[in-house]
C-alpha cells in the first residue's frame, strides 16, 4: 500500500525524525523549526511537506506563517475502532453461545 512507503521514507531521514520530535509536544512555525538545523529554510520546508504527505504532521496557515504539528489522529482512530469491535464481538459471541442452549 502506497501509504506505507511514504511513512517509511519519511522516518528514514534523521532531519525529519528530529522535526517530528520537535513537533511532538507543540505546534511550531517553519521559522522556529529551521533554527534547529544547519540547512536552509526551503530545505526544511521540503522535509515538512514530505512528512505532511505521509500523514505524519498536519499543517495550518496562521497569517503569513505555516505552522506544523505531529498527527496522532490515525492512531486514535484505529484505537477507537478496536474498542468498538471488542464490545461488538463480546455481544455477538454471546448470541452465538445462546444458539446452543442456556447452559452456555
Amino acid at each position, binding site marked *: *500500500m502506497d*501509504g*506505507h512507503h511514504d*511513512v*517509511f521514507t519519511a*522516518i*528514514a531521514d*534523521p532531519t525529519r*525524525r*528530529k522535526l*517530528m*520530535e520537535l513537533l*511532538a509536544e507543540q505546534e511550531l512555525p517553519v521559522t522556529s523549526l529551521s533554527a534547529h538545523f544547519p540547512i536552509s529554510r526551503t530545505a526544511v520546508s521540503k522535509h515538512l511537506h514530505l512528512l505532511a504527505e*505521509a*500523514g*505524519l504532521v498536519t499543517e495550518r496557515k496562521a497569517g503569513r506563517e505555516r505552522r506544523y504539528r*505531529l498527527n*496522532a489522529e*490515525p*492512531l486514535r*482512530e*484505529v*484505537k477507537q*475502532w*478496536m474498542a468498538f*469491535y*471488542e464490545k461488538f*464481538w463480546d455481544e*455477538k*459471541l454471546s*448470541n*452465538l*453461545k*445462546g*444458539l*446452543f*442452549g442456556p*447452559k*452456555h
Partner: protein
Amino acid sequence: MSFESSTMSDIFHSFTIDAPIAEVWTAVATSEGLAAWLMPNDFQPVPGHKFTFRMPPQENWSGVTHCEVLELDEPHRLSFTWTSDPIHDLTPTVVTFTLEAHAGQTEFTLVHSGWDKQPAALLPVRNILDEGWGRHTVERLKTYLGLA
C-alpha cells in the same frame, strides 16, 4: 530492538460449545447461520466470494461491512477480510473462525486481526523519535511489520 507493546494486538476469544463440530460449522459458515447471531449477510462458503454484513446505520458509519472469503477448510477454519466502511480508508482487518472437535463438543476460536497493519497507525510515535535509527533499523522495522 524492542517496540512498545502499545502496538495493536489481535482481538481473541476462545470457548467450548456443547455441540458437535458440524452443527457449529453450520452456525458460523453459512449465511443463515451467521444471520442468526452475527448480522444479516450474503455470505457464501466460496473462497474469493465478496459479501456484506448489514446492520442499522450508526453515528459515523453506514452499518455495512464489506468482506471477502480468504480461507475455507470445512469444518475447521473460515477466514475473511473485514472492512467496516470504505470511506474510513483503513486497511482491511481479518476475521478467522477456528473449530476443533473434542469428544462431541467444539472448541471455537475467533481472532480479529490486522489492526497493526494500518498505515502510520502502528508506529508508536515515541519509538520513531529515537535519534539512533539508521537505514538498517528501518529495514528491520519493515520486516517486523511484514512489509519488507
